[in-house]
């Protein structure tokens, strides 16, 4: 009997394609002697498909063809078990396709990674890998992340968050406010997107307008913060749960511009991979972008990054594997937590490989962590027997009626 794991990926998100790559990488890494891996591809239209070709990234070039060869499914809870059923049902054919013991959400970005998909599992009572609804939602929202980390006494840059409608109502007021608060240069970000999408730097009021309007295309809420001019980016992954955490190696992603763009992160350099990781099997995704691994840090800096990363993990009540991105202000020698990815690109496997933990070993631990959380939850609602006292009203005469 193998453990049946549904790998959920895709979704209505700007990072849809990245998720397809990460899912394929993960499926390739997992131990198929132990696990039966069932792909569940969520289209940009939020429909779910399963099929044998869905872990093959190359097949996605012809998406309509791929989908026509795949099977649309629905999830159903029946007698305490979660089933994948064929949809629409065919006459005289069993709709049952598979039963799931565990879900592995490998999704990036809004509408999926932000707790939506986790909530869907939660509602079905299906145990799943990674952060729960609350932590996922917090991790996706840059403003909430900043507030929580600040509340936990962890170093973050100051920031100002506003509704885009306020800006379009009175743009000058917002601009003046930001100039007064931080001056230039500024970083402007949509509040709830990952992978650097919609993020830009502004050096004057003209650029600020452009930046805000760019961010507003992606989100209704916009976060502005002062931009560090002499800084490096450092990333570190954390794995575990509230009982035990562990930090990976640190990397320094190398960018072509002031900030690491979406292209830098996921479409890879390929030419100048001087310091690139020993990415496995030529697969693409985060595993193949430009980086220094391990990052050039002093022993104290590295220690601090690792401790802060674990503290951030706990402050957000994360679970499974996350990646924490830092900004290292070289002038002040100050480290700031920039953002938290509750489902990092490529699951940050390259950071763990550099720390001596194979991708397969990682997935093994993630499965056990998910099951452990489910046990803890089951324990909280430990009641199943018929209680002969349930019908009684203690000490009230009303019981006689």
């Amino acid at each position, binding site marked *: 009997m193998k453990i049946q794991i549904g790998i959920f990926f895709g979704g209505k998100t700007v990072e849809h394609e990245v998720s397809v790559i990460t899912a394929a990488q993960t499926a390739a890494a997992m131990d198929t002697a132990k696990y039966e891996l069932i792909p569940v591809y969520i289209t940009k239209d939020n429909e779910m498909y399963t099929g044998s070709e869905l872990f093959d990234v190359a097949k996605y070039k012809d998406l309509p063809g791929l989908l026509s060869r795949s099977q649309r499914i629905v999830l159903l809870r029946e007698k305490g078990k979660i089933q994948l059923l064929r949809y629409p049902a065919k006459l005289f054919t069993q709709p049952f396709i598979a039963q799931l013991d565990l879900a592995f959400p490998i999704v990036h970005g809004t509408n999926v990674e932000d707790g939506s998909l986790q909530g869907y599992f939660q509602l079905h009572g299906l145990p799943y890998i990674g952060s729960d609804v609350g932590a996922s939602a917090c991790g996706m929202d840059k403003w909430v992340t900043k507030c929580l980390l600040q509340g936990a006494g962890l170093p973050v840059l100051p920031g100002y968050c506003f509704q885009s409608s306020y800006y379009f109502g009175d743009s000058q007021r917002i601009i003046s406010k930001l100039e007064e608060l931080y001056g230039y240069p500024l970083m402007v970000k949509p509040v709830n997107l990952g992978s650097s999408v919609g993020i830009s730097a502004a050096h004057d009021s003209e650029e600020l307008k452009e930046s805000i309007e760019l961010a507003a295309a992606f989100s209704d809420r916009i976060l502005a913060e002062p931009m560090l001019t002499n800084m490096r980016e450092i990333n570190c992954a954390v794995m575990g749960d509230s009982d035990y955490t562990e930090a990976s190696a640190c990397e320094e992603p190398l960018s072509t511009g002031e900030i690491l763009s979406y292209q830098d992160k996921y479409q890879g350099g390929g030419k100048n991979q001087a310091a690139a990781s020993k990415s496995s099997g030529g697969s693409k995704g985060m595993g193949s972008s430009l980086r220094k691994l391990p990052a050039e840090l002093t022993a104290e800096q590295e220690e601090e990054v690792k401790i802060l990363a674990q503290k951030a993990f706990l402050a957000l009540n994360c679970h499974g594997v996350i990646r924490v991105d830092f900004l290292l202000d070289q002038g002040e020698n100050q480290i700031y937590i920039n953002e938290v990815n509750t489902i990092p690109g490529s699951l940050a496997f390259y950071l763990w490989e550099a720390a001596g933990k194979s991708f397969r070993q990682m997935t093994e631990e993630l499965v056990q962590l998910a099951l452990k959380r489910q046990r803890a939850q089951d324990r909280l609602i430990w009641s199943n027997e018929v209680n002969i006292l349930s019908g009684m009203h203690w000490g009230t005469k009303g019981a006689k*009626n």
Partner: protein
Amino acid sequence: MFSVVLFVLLGSFIYFFWGGFRQSVHMLQLNSYYTERFLQWLKGQQRKEAVYLMAAMIVISFSIRYVMSIYLYLIFNALIFFVVALIRKKQPDKKPLVYTWRLKRLMITASLICIAFILSLGVLFRGTFWWELPFLLAFLNLMVHTIVIVANFLNGPIERRIAKGFTDDAKRILTGHPGLKIIGVTGSYGKTSTKHLISQLLSLDYQVLATPESYNTPMGVVRTIREKLSATHQVFIVEMGAKKPGDIKEICDIVQPHMGIISSIGEMHLDTFHNLDNIIRTKFELADAVAKEGLLFLNYDNEHIRKQKLSQPVVRYGLGKAGEDNQQLDLWAENVVSGPKGSQFDLCFADGRRIACQTKLLGKLNVLNIAAAAAVATKLGVEPSRLSQAISRLEPVPHRLQLLPPGPRYQIIDDAYNSNPEGSRQALETLAGFPGYKVIITPGMVELGDQEEELNRRLGRHAARFCDFIIIVGQNRSPAIMDGARRAGYNESNIYVAADIHDALEKADQLAGDLAEGEGPMTVLLENDLPDNYLDAGKGKQARRK
């Protein structure tokens, strides 16, 4: 017209018949479809109502059958069935009837017997069949238990075949799960608690499945495997119950346990085991099953277990004696202090390690059960240093010395599923540790064979020592309990014999209300409440919930 009348008659008869029929199959189900045990329940039953009804029908019908038409006659009889059904006393079920497939098959067979019976007598009384029909129906009602027994007998072969199919399926599932650690738990008492506690401690590191509630029969185990076991499980804990020799072996043959725990041996189910030797032999069937490569965990506080000579690897646990060297134990609890807030103790290992623990579970027996769980957990690689925290978080097992959240007038220690002499005494001692006014509600103990009366008398004596008030549920065992209390010099005005559990709780309400200043708070121990088939049938008060 005649068919309408017939329809009315049969309709009201079925409505009438259903009550007895349902009760009968319900009791058979509660007695696990064992005819013998069902008959034992039946012995205590009075079928006066059915006999009177039969007699009344004969008298009335013979006096009116020559003066009215067949229509009126049948309608009149239909009315009798209907009225009797309406005024019949109903009792709420404590354990509901479950419409399993087996039960449905039984009901179908029983219905077929009824129809065959009516039809064959119809041939016999050809001429006057319609006139005799009401008697035949009343007679059918009188025979309801017999019909159910015959149906059960007829279904036997097919049920056994179906059961074998399920068992084979369960075995196949286990074969496909080679990494699964299987732990068997048996004992005269304490096995459900031990199972729960092992499950909670092992959950620190493992995905655990345990047979739910008190599913401890072969079919209960098979059902758990078929319905609950999933690929993610790493440990399967099987509670093994026995009422006769061979029962444990039967379960072991299905699951083939790697580890076994014998939590206690005592005088349980003496009515089916007949003597203690049989009990010991049956429990140690588990020892034989794990003999080859497995590990056996034994409660060395129990003299019957201690006496056994075994040549296989064992882990011995118990409550050690402070100050003495507990050489014959591998793991024990020492310095046990129990009170109304739970217990504190030191968990000691043979290598000299000691871990200070505390638990909110009540009573020393629970400390013993925790020692068993800790022994299993350590053998399966749970780090002893983590046990202390896990033990402090252990949750009580429902209905087993479980302190319920306090009600507005008094708090309840729910020990309702306990039914052994040793456990009862410990429960009373636990109650004694509570401040204020102490009340016990108990129907006494059953299934103890010849010793039942003596043991209930002893229960009365202990209750007299520790309780300010004794409420006995039902008449059956109340004389023995009262006798015990009386001999201990207990004031009889502080004993109340309640008709049923609702009456008993109402009495407790009243006591709480009458409590004088300074006498409180009041604590009620709910001891040995039993499933439906032991309640004094027909003597209960009218059901309150309708």
